[in-house]
């Protein structure tokens, strides 16, 4: 979502400019995780993506590993999954592969939405002409916002349904933010935000929400209009919190910080799947502009305060604490989560909402030693599954 994520997206392989919405099986899932490459010496970000990828490519492995804009970041993505159990298995494989290679190179792999103390000037732009071009275009933004997100793809039957989900999901955006928030520290300070990463997004043009268009044909018109201005060249130039991904036939939720472990990443995918099933089957509210009236308010509250933040339900105009709305939501999702066999995963998320998200965990971990190097070490242990 923020700079490096945006820029990284921009280097995706050649896209289909026809914008035809590919068919995909409804409610299938896929996730992408952007991960930090950190030095064992001091816990700061370090260069190592090239060696890491070279080592991984030598072996048979699951998942797809890609370089990112900086040498300190690696992206992993899963294949298409019908259920969270197989996704979990694949991510476990991915983790094993990644840790094996990282150990050999004396590197640590960390989740989290941002590195707690990296000095952005230290970062170098990944050595490819395309990246250098982007660096020229965005200047310091390209380096300063080295942030790390999880993207979740949910399969949609067609473009119209993708747009329905895109707009309907906006009501649940704060839930995703609070559930995944894992960037309380940034550049060596406690930002007081649960997800400081989201603040990085706003600096970019074409970030935020998608315009209210309901039909895929209207969306194509909108896109052509924007292309006519010369503002965008392809879908990749829109950095919205939620956007359609026509070539995959999915709606892509891009708001989440990369969580500290893969279990949370899978649980977030499970929540997406359950919410989408609920929305598609029950059609609980009408899509109109009023959905977006409190969008930025809710988004800010969740990023700043997590589950303690205020939440205004745009469909009922009711104001409540985000945690309460999340727990009510889980109750509404119950039949769907049972059908999708993700009840246990969502129960785990309820525990997160009640007892503390990753941002809370990080603050607790930092408090005794007040050493960021030590915090990074503990975060790396979380990713390894040693906690």
């Amino acid at each position, binding site marked *: 979502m923020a700079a490096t994520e945006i820029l990284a997206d921009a280097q995706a392989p050649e896209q289909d400019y026809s914008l035809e919405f590919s068919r995909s099986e409804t409610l299938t899932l896929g996730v992408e995780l952007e991960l930090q490459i950190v*030095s*064992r*010496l*001091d*816990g*700061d970000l*370090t*260069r*190592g993506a*090239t*060696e890491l990828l*070279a*080592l991984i490519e030598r072996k048979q492995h699951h998942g797809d590993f890609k370089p990112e804009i900086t*040498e300190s970041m690696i992206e992993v993505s899963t294949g298409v999954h019908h259920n969270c159990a197989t996704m979990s298995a694949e991510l476990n494989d991915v983790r094993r592969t990644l840790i094996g*290679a990282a*150990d*050999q*190179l*004396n590197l640590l792999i960390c989740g989290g939405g941002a590195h707690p103390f990296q000095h952005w*000037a*230290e970062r*170098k732009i990944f*050595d490819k002409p395309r990246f250098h071009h982007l660096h020229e275009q965005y200047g310091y933004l390209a380096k300063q916002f080295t942030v790390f997100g999880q993207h979740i793809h949910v399969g949609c039957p067609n473009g119209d349904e993708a747009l329905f989900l895109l707009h309907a999901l906006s009501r649940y955006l704060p839930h995703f933010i609070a559930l995944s928030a894992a960037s309380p520290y940034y550049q060596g300070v406690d930002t007081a935000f649960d997800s400081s990463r989201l603040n990085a997004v706003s600096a970019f043009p074409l970030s935020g929400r998608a315009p209210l268009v309901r039909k895929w044909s209207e969306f194509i018109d909108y896109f052509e209009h924007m292309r006519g201005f010369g503002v965008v060249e392809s879908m990749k130039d829109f950095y919205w919190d939620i956007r359609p991904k026509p070539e995959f036939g999915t709606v892509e939720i891009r708001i989440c910080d990369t969580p500290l472990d893969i279990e949370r990443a899978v649980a977030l995918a499970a929540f997406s799947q359950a919410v989408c099933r609920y929305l598609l089957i029950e059609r609980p509210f009408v899509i109109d502009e009023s959905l977006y009236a409190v969008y930025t308010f809710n988004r800010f509250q969740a990023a700043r305060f997590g589950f303690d933040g205020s939440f205004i339900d745009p469909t009922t105009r009711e104001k409540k604490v985000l945690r309460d709305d999340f727990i009510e939501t889980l109750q509404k999702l119950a039949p769907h989560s049972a059908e999708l066999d993700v009840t246990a995963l969502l129960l785990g998320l309820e525990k997160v909402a009640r007892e503390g998200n990753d941002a809370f965990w990080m603050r607790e971990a930092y408090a005794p*030693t007040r*050493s960021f*190097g*030590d915090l990074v*070490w503990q975060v790396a242990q979380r990713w390894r599954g040693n906690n």
Partner: protein
Amino acid sequence: MSEYFFLPAWPPAFGNLLWFGATLLVAVLLGELAHRLRLPRISGYVFTGLLLSPQLGGQWAPDIFERLRPFFTVAFGLLLFELGQRIDLGWLRRNPWLLATGVAEAGLAFLLTAGILYFIDVPGPVAVLAAALACATGPAVVLSVCKDASARGPITERLHLLAALNSAMSFIAVGMVYAFQHITDASHLEIGLLHPLYLIAGSVVLGAVLALAVLALLARLRPAHGTQTIGAIALIIAAVALADTLQLSVVIALLVAGTLARAWDKQRRLQPMDFGLMGRLALIVVFVSTGSLLHLDAVGAAIVPAVALIAARALGKIVGVFAFAYPSGLSQRKASLLSIGLLPMTGAALLWVERTTQVWPELGAQLAAIVLTALIIMEVLAPPALQFALKRADETNPER
């Protein structure tokens, strides 16, 4: 008493302190000049040493090294502790091919160097001792140039590890040559065995004690205001003095101390340790001293064996690194950069030459001619080469 008792004697006798200040000033200026010429700053420091030593500076120049000696020993110790601290022994376990690389590059450099020197009629003991000194990569050079360039990344980390490994191996090799020499000398079997044993075991024990002391201290101090760092420096100075008095190896004791402190630091207290300005000062002192010990008049005499030594050890290191590059996870391109980075020779060789000369004057003189000549050449060429390798590996920070 003269009535002008308040005036100093003429000519005035300047103390060490003035020389120290002046030397430091020249070093800083020449270091900056080197930096502007896109050379590593240590090239400027080495040149300062050369310039201010009697050979270039003329009659009025004092023996810098003798005057700097206490500072030099402490500074060298500090740098080696800092290097040791960056070594992760666990890495050797996680990637055993690195150990293979270290053994291969140092071993081959030793064998090839000894072989070629012997082949061109250098006496056996001289050849072997020169080879033992040549198989090390200058740990202080590696640390300094990497810091100078704010280098970070896989090549930088491997350079630190391999320099520490081959310094240790070089030390053991020298110890064994000493033992052998003692035995053949006068069949002093006990001395032959005891000398290296004392040297190795004593240095390692001292290093381990220092490591424990540093960790114990850090556990009791808070990191604020550099208190921890100054406390650690105090312990390091004491340990360096002990190593010197007990005739142990400062290199090994401090390298071992840094490495063990890191390995035993389960609470990661060492992590925020930064020797900062003290480290920079140490670096200047070490390289000015090294420069002042490079006797240019020695160059002519032993140019052929010196060049043979340089070529042979370079070949050994290149072959050793390439042999295990693939299994250790390094591309061919990065392997060639790593080989270049390993080329600097160690200034510690000068101390060994000195020590050897004390025990075996004739052997020492022959050794000095070869090693000094090679060292002069490498002190000029190797740091820029190392900096070049780091740049090509894209591990330097151009914004600094």
